């Protein structure tokens, strides 16, 4: 089957399930992306300066481009869209193509999270079935479980935020866990010296700014930091709990049981962790579905369910998706707009069905 043919079949499934075609802009204001992903992502983008000196980029991702469109059109309420187009980004892996053909869908602005999660995952599975790929592996996770676990632990607030912020960067995250378990992040000699400066600064105009930060802001953070020490033993225990949590990995039908056992083992209240995964529907899908707490850590904007589908014989990833409830707000919306989506990667698909 040629690439064009399976595109047709996939799109037919999307349309049949009520998704409406939408073509996001190819050119985006680079700031949209850099504000969200930071300077390090900049080098992966294909950018240029327009005549007015504005930095523009080719859309590195169709999800972001679709969200920008949703906001620019002042859309209200639920929007179920699908797209067929190209995303342009460099990769750290030189074998990857810069141009990626994608067929994807998004549900933006709907509050029924569990139902929407189910609809996205099922539509993608139907589309894959339509092009007759039978043996696939579905990896699924829910990154919100980690956040919920961290919130329930007894560690300083700034450590909670730090761990949550860096969950999606596994290597640096491991460094953080080591630090949490071994040494202090407060230098007693420096603190002593700065305490004297603290008293002096308290007498100054608190609204005065030093390099973009008010004196009151600096002093309040300093105060919080020194009065928020943590014990090494507690830190070590926390690091152990987190590591153990991230080891949970089993077939989807055992997920609830293994989470329950974990919480029991570490005396964490049962109602601390709630998930929105379509567990029943996935268990009955007939495919091999693996749940892992460690899964979904490679894209920053996911906030809940995440999944990836790969072909069983060669482990080639052909589709991925997830929930991204904070993305629209970070792109400029003044309120939280829930969203979930997924895309099939046509380049990988053609590589698989040669």
């Amino acid at each position: 089957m040629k690439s064009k043919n399976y595109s047709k079949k996939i799109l037919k499934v999307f349309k049949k399930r009520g998704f409406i075609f939408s073509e996001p802009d190819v050119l985006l204001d680079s700031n949209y992306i850099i504000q969200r992903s930071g300077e390090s992502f900049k080098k992966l983008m294909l950018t240029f300066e327009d005549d007015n000196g504005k930095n523009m980029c080719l859309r590195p991702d169709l999800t972001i481009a679709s969200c920008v469109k949703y906001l620019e059109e002042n859309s209200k309420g639920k929007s179920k869209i699908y797209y067929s187009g190209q995303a342009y980004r460099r990769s750290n892996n030189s074998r990857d193509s810069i141009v990626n053909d994608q067929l994807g869908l998004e549900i933006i602005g709907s509050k029924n999270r569990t139902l929407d999660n189910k609809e996205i995952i099922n539509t993608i599975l139907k589309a894959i079935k339509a092009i007759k790929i039978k043996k696939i592996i579905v990896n699924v996770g829910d990154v919100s479980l980690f956040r919920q676990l961290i919130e329930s632990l007894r560690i300083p607030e700034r450590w909670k935020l730090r761990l949550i912020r860096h969950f999606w960067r596994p290597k640096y995250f491991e460094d953080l866990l080591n630090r949490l378990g071994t040494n202090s992040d407060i230098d007693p000699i420096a603190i002593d010296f700065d305490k004297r400066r603290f008293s002096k600064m308290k007498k100054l105009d608190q609204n005065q700014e030093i390099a973009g930060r008010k004196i009151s802001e600096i002093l309040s953070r300093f105060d919080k930091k020194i009065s928020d020490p943590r014990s090494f033993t507690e830190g070590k225990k926390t690091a152990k709990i987190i590591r153990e949590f991230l080891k949970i990995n089993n077939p989807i039908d055992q997920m609830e049981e293994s989470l329950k056992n974990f919480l029991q083992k570490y005396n964490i209240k049962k109602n601390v962790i709630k998930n929105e995964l379509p567990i029943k529907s996935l268990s009955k899908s007939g495919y091999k579905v693996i749940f892992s707490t460690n899964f979904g850590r490679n894209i920053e904007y996911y906030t809940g369910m995440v999944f990836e589908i790969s072909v069983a014989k060669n482990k080639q990833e052909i589709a991925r998706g997830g929930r991204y409830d904070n993305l629209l707000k970070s792109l400029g919306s003044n309120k939280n707009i829930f969203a979930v989506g997924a895309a099939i990667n046509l380049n990988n698909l053609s590589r698989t069905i040669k």
Partner: protein
Amino acid sequence: MKNLFTIGLPSKGRLKESTLNYLKKKNFKLTSKGGDRDYFANLNNLPNVKVIYLHAREIIERLGDGTLDLGISGLDLLYESAVNLQKKIEVKKKLYFGKATLVVAVPNDWIDVQTVADLEEISFYFRDKKNLRLRVATKYPNLTNKFFTTKGVTQYKIVLSLGATETYPFTGSSEVITDITSSGSTLKANNLRVLKDGSILRSQACILASKKSLLDIKKKRIIKLF
């Protein structure tokens, strides 16, 4: 055989002085027809060698494009240059002068910021509460980006600086800086302090050779003399 071999030397400042001293100790005598302002010189004992005085950054560029066979410049400038340039240059010898460290510095009064982890927290605060990105002024964007990435700092924006970087946090042009310092006194005089774990790179002057020139036996022989 005329001007077979070209050497780039720093054209000004302490780096030039120390380089000339080094060459003197090695018994090389430099002469320029046009006096002190002449950008070209010859080495008395090596008639086929031409010396050009260039900006230390330019020496790296010219070694990369093959205009120079040998040069003396800073390790910081080599590592800051584009990867494809670095691939064409070999560090032959690290010299005893030009020692300096590229560091991350913040305003002295930011007493709550002692480590890069603190800075990372502040950068998220800037993004979430002020909807701004923390600005980092630097002459070394590549080394700064690489360092911050490994330390988990992602929410910042580079502001390119051409000089007097130390003033940036106090003129509203950036919040923090990364800069090269040998004693730290300029930073101190400008109310800045180095983060506890904010050392990006220890640099010093080096003898650098074009890898292409090293393949030429005659040129390789001259390179060995330095």
